[in-house]
């Protein structure tokens, strides 16, 4: 059943973002702002980097503002001129990624001006950008969102959100897969990974894939086969999920951008679920000194070890 | 106007039986303080003192199920009985520590555990959540001149790391609460000693000896009365008092109050709303003497 989701406040948020962006650019508090702007196709939005206060009117926030802009701040991806503070528009999920990046010494809080967005959800990658936001058209990650309202930002529009309780799509799907036999799960993932063409969109949009040289691009030694064959694809996605375990902030960009519709975030959610159960770790707004896989306690579970 | 506090209320079996006045005074006091108590629907026995000695899984499961029931109601779990409090806290502690036991209990209950709720003794609610300042402000009839021996017994603070109510061996929370409503407390030696608890039925001799030492100590310290937060302690100190006086040929005449009775008195509740008539050692002469009735 289609459950409508109230996004009426997005217009007010857009105005507030524009005003704040204008102020901080005009007052020289930041040198650039990473935000969203409308794009050519109807209802669509795209990332934009503005440096001129006059361009603040271009900034928007709509259910089509799907990107996690944190990716533009990591060094391997983009070089936004680093001669001052940078403003960035962040949803709660994006802010978790920023917190993770700060914990991994990739960013410094004092170099950022965070414009937080109260967000009721954004659209799924499978629907056209001009659709209404509903319980069906919403991005799966938003059904499990616990961070509708970012905190600890420099600026957050004072809007009140109404967020309906939705069926947790990943939890449901993970439970379904967990109930299968290993052989059945293998068949499922084999079909999914077979579609992969190694375009690496999943890697390139991931805020945490900030390595200058990806392990999977190396050939001395060749840890992972680079060709887009089922074997290499499977290895790539396993390694990717493992490298993100304990780091992934759950923005689900990998899954959103996959041109082959591989449910990549399922792997990340599964890892998050395990880390929660094993070590009570959850990605949040807090900047952690050490991720769950960079630390240990003597009492950690070892029931699987003989 | 402050937001009213909400709790799910776990009275426990005693409060529905021998300690009816504790239940009554708790409900009345919280009503007077505008603290919302919602009795947990369909709650049942926590297993009390026998279960964990016989079958640990059963005792954990009973508590876990009660906590699951409590989860339906918004707010932390308020517990009056020190034994119930101890059992619920112990279950949370044990299940929190052991994944194996958690799995066993989950299997027994056939449901995922909900252990996150805070279990709080009434003392904690009064002293910390409601706050001593607000409590003092709510007093209509300060208990001035009443010398109270606060009796903790064994279970309220022990063992280490489980109830986390206060310092394990040298707590002060009872004193703080009762001093906040105007009473005077006496320093005494036996406030943490055992009263004999439910040996009262099987080995009354032990109870007479142990409870006698507690009463002795309170009397020696110059107390007018004893305040408790546990129906078992209350039973021994109050019901057995006459018998002990006979055995040792002494006179104590120490009324034994539940903390909610004394605090209730101070906020102006009448003795009918506090179940004073259910007490064996008649408190009326003392309360008259102190102009509290």
């Amino acid at each position, binding site marked *: 059943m289609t459950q409508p989701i109230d996004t009426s406040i997005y217009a007010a948020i857009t105005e507030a973002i524009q005003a704040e962006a204008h102020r901080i650019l005009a007052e020289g508090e930041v040198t650039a702002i990473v935000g969203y702007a409308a794009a050519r196709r109807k209802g669509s939005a795209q990332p934009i980097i503005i440096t001129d206060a006059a361009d603040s009117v271009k900034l928007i926030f709509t259910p089509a503002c799907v990107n996690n802009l944190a990716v533009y701040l990591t060094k391997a991806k983009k070089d936004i001129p680093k001669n001052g503070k940078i403003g960035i528009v962040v949803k709660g999920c994006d802010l978790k990624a920023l917190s993770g990046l700060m914990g991994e010494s990739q960013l410094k809080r004092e170099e950022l001006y965070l414009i937080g967005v109260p967000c009721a959800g954004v659209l799924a990658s499978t629907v056209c950008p001009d659709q209404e936001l509903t319980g069906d058209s919403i991005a799966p990650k938003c059904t499990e969102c616990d961070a509708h309202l970012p905190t600890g930002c420099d600026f957050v529009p004072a809007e009140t959100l109404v967020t309906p309780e939705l069926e947790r799509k990943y939890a449901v799907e993970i439970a379904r897969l967990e109930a299968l036999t290993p052989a059945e799960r293998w068949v499922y993932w084999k079909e999914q990974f077979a579609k992969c063409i190694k375009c690496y969109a999943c890697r390139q949009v991931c805020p945490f894939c900030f390595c200058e040289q990806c392990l999977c691009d190396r050939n001395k030694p060749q840890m992972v086969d680079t060709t887009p064959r089922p074997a290499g694809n499977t290895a790539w996605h396993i390694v990717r*999920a493992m490298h993100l375990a304990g780091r992934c902030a759950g923005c689900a960009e990998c899954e959103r951008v996959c041109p082959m519709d591989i449910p990549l975030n399922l792997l990340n959610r599964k890892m998050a679920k395990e880390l929660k159960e094993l070590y009570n770790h959850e990605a949040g707004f807090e900047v952690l000194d050490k991720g769950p896989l960079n630390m240990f306690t003597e009492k950690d579970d070892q029931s699987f070890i003989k | 106007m402050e937001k009213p506090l909400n709790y799910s209320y776990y009275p426990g079996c005693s409060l529905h039986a021998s300690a009816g006045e504790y239940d009554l005074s708790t409900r009345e006091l919280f009503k007077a303080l505008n603290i919302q108590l919602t009795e947990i629907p369909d709650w049942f026995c926590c297993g009390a003192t026998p279960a964990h000695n016989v079958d640990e899984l059963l005792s954990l499961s009973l508590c876990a199920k009660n906590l699951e029931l409590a989860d339906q109601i918004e707010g932390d779990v308020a517990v009056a009985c020190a034994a119930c409090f101890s059992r619920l806290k112990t279950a949370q502690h044990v299940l929190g520590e052991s994944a194996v036991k958690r799995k066993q209990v989950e299997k027994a209950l056939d449901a995922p555990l909900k252990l996150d709720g805070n279990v709080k003794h009434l003392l904690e609610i009064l002293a910390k959540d409601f706050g001593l300042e607000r409590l003092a402000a709510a007093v209509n009839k300060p208990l001035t001149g009443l010398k109270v021996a606060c009796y903790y017994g064994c279970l309220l603070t022990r063992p280490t790391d489980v109830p986390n109510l206060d310092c394990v061996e040298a707590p002060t929370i009872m004193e703080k609460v009762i001093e906040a409503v105007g009473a005077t407390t006496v320093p005494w030696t036996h406030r943490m000693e055992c009263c004999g608890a439910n040996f009262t039925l099987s080995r009354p001799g032990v109870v007479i000896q142990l409870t006698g030492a507690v009463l002795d100590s309170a009397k020696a310290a110059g107390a007018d009365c004893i305040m408790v937060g546990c129906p078992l302690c209350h039973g021994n100190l109050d019901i057995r008092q006459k018998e002990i006086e006979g055995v040792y040929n002494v006179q104590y005449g120490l009324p034994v109050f539940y903390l909610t009775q004394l605090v209730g008195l101070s906020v102006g509740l009448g003795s009918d709303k506090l179940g004073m008539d259910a007490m064996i050692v008649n408190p009326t002469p003392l309360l008259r003497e102190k102009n509290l009735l």
Partner: protein
Amino acid sequence: MQPTKQNTFEPKIIAFVCTWCTYAGADLAGTSRMQYPSNVRVLKFPCTGRIDPVFILKAFQQGADGVLVSGCHPGDCHYIAGNFHARRRFAVFRKLLEFVGVDLNRLQFSWVSAAEGGKWVEVVTDLTEKVRSMGPMTEFKELAMEEQWSGAINTPELQEAYNSI
């Protein structure tokens, strides 16, 4: 040995072990002349902390039917805490493998100290026998043979598949 042996499946077991405890434990099994199946191939590392999950993946891809990772007991690590880090890493990695459909009966973790020659024999024997009863690990091997449809060429098998339609 029995001549029937060549007809039965002999699993390939790869063991990733730390040099200070498990490797020494395996040495002790040797000096004590204990006997165990010859299926295991040992790769020595300074510490379980050095063992990358990718190695396990690679081992399966290269045809291992079972993988063993073994190091020092908690608290015994020659490098203070390498095994503690490894413990977390593999606790998570095995869950991932399980989720993508690898039967975890093929992946064993153990603590074997330098004094536990007997335990080494037990762990290796148990894993070998368990994997033997499970049969070959076909998943990764089959995967290695597969192509995207567009890269496939006519093979007798493919032709047969078409014929059977």
